[in-house]
């Protein structure tokens, strides 16, 4: 069955395969190689992205460091900040998103996993593409389009490898042994389908056949916001909808609400990106459409929030014993917070203060770190023991990782939201010299660097633990279908 050719697997009319229901442990074991590759790559990118983040943060307030790097172009703020964004978005986040979403897809399909070679090759090529793009930015080939800074020569590698990954996801969906399509599958399928649409349209209209004038800016922000909203957010939510009930052993509070949340997100999110251009030189009706869609996003957010939080009611004790749940719940709460704040920030009166200030940077980290990254950490803590058939070696490192990540990102968000608001407010006044505002920002930027140091420690804990687990063949091994069953522990 798994020997079917790729053509047979893609074309629904060319195969008569009988689907056999397969045990979860067998699916986990068969996925080990590509998933471990994706996760290892993502952890390495995370460390590299953290280094760039620290450099970008420190030069904002340490003038001696800025002077030291002054003559070295690849270390200037503009390059280092861009390297940070691209390494984190396409290296860390996307690798983790691929692994987590494809693992969930394969598990929910409950059948033999096919064409793993294809997935492995795609995983390697995706990372080659990201590396080519990052080196391109480093050596000065960066494009001046936010979220699309990678040079055009990296694009074909990324598109091709993404296509292979997407096709693999579709094949695992097509050969599912479960009539019902769980809400996580909806989110993941949509994410796999939306990303190539966004990426190809944006590349065509901005890089390969550039549109003129403000159309580029509109396309740019349509793309940039939708990478978050239509690719990473669905993967994050799919993970919450899978892991939260799985860890608790209790179905989600209301399945009806979860389906409503999915379809309303699909309807509204695509329009919201232009709120980045509120007040800019684009037609007012386009801005208004973006603002309306951003406010309409309150519907899926409230629906999803109610569902997550009500599922947790009465089960908070579980946070004590489950590492995965700690990260997932932190992420789910942050999703509600960042999304509601994002809707408010789209309003003209709020945007006039928050736009072009550190507030926007804080908001981006609220979504990408406090929500998405925390959910991915939780997912990795759940998946890795099942792939490797062994426990995480250290309870201390898990707890240290969680608390440093949670405290670090909280300091980051509090400091930069407040500082950003003050900055935006002052910039709106005509009587305050800009230099004074810059000096006023220094303590808040220092609080960001302090948070960055804590987050760096957190990532180092996580990386040490991750690679320790990979290499630790003498760790406690578990046999049998479900891990963590006390009766079936063996020491290898």
């Amino acid at each position, binding site marked *: 069955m798994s020997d079917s050719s790729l053509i047979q697997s893609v074309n629904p009319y060319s195969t008569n395969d009988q689907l056999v229901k397969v*045990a*979860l*442990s067998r699916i986990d074991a068969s996925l080990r190689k590509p998933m471990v590759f994706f996760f290892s790559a993502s952890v390495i990118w995370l460390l590299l992205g953290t280094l760039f983040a620290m450099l970008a943060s420190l030069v904002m307030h340490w003038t001696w460091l800025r002077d030291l790097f002054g003559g070295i172009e690849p270390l200037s703020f503009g390059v280092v900040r861009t390297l940070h964004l691209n390494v984190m978005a396409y290296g860390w986040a996307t690798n983790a998103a691929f692994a987590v979403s494809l693992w969930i897809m394969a598990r*929910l399909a*409950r059948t033999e996993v096919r064409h793993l070679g294809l997935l492995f090759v795609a995983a390697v090529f995706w990372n080659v593409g990201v590396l080519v793009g990052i080196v391109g930015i480093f050596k000065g080939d960066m494009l001046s389009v936010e979220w699309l800074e990678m040079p055009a020569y990296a694009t074909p590698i990324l598109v091709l490898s993404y296509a292979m990954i997407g096709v693999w996801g579709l094949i695992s969906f097509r050969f599912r042994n*479960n*009539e*019902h*399509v*769980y*809400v*996580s599958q909806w989110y993941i399928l949509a994410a796999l*389908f939306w990303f190539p*649409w966004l990426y*190809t*349209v944006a590349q*065509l*209209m901005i890089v390969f*056949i550039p*549109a*003129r004038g403000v*159309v580029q800016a509109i396309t740019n922000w349509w793309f940039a916001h939708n990478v978050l909203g239509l690719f990473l957010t669905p993967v994050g939510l799919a993970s919450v909808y*899978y892991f939260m*009930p*799985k*860890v*608790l*052993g*209790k*179905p*989600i509070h*209301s*399945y*009806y609400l*979860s*389906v409503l949340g999915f*379809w309303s997100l*699909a309807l509204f999110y695509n329009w919201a990106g232009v709120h980045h251009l509120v007040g800019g030189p684009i037609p007012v009706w386009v801005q208004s459409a973006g603002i309306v869609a951003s406010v309409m996003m309150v519907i899926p957010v409230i629906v999803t929030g109610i569902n997550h939080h009500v599922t947790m009611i009465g089960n908070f004790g*579980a946070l004590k*014993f*489950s*590492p*995965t*749940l700690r990260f997932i719940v932190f992420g789910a709460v942050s999703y509600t917070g960042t999304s509601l704040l994002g809707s408010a920030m789209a309003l003209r009166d709020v945007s006039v203060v928050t736009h072009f200030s550190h507030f926007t940077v804080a908001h981006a980290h609220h979504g990408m770190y406090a929500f998405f990254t925390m959910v991915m950490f939780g997912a990795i*803590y*759940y998946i890795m023991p099942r792939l490797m058939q062994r*426990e*995480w*070696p*250290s*309870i201390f490192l*898990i707890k240290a990782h969680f608390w440093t990540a949670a405290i670090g990102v909280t300091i980051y968000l509090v400091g930069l939201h407040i500082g950003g608001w003050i900055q935006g407010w002052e910039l709106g006044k005509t009587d305050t010299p800009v230099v004074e505002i810059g000096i006023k920002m220094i303590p808040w930027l220092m609080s960001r660097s302090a948070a960055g140091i804590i987050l760096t420690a957190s990532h180092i804990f996580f990386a040490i633990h991750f690679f320790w687990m990979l290499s630790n063949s003498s760790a*406690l091994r578990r046999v049998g*279908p*479900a*891990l*963590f069953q*006390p009766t079936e522990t063996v020491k290898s």
Partner: protein
Amino acid sequence: MWSLYVSIVGVFAMMFLLSAVYALHWASKNGQFKNFQEGARTIFDEEEPEGVPTDYFPGQIPGHKK
């Protein structure tokens, strides 16, 4: 040039819209919107059944001594 953009964006937008409509139609025809609470239980099975938590700190399972 504008007609090129309109056709690129138009084709993509139409493809997107039609596939969304098709997905919604398929889901409705396939009974995906019926019996919602049963749908929520499809993530559980014999190996990882409902009612059994599946994640702990290593070696720290309540009521179990190593």
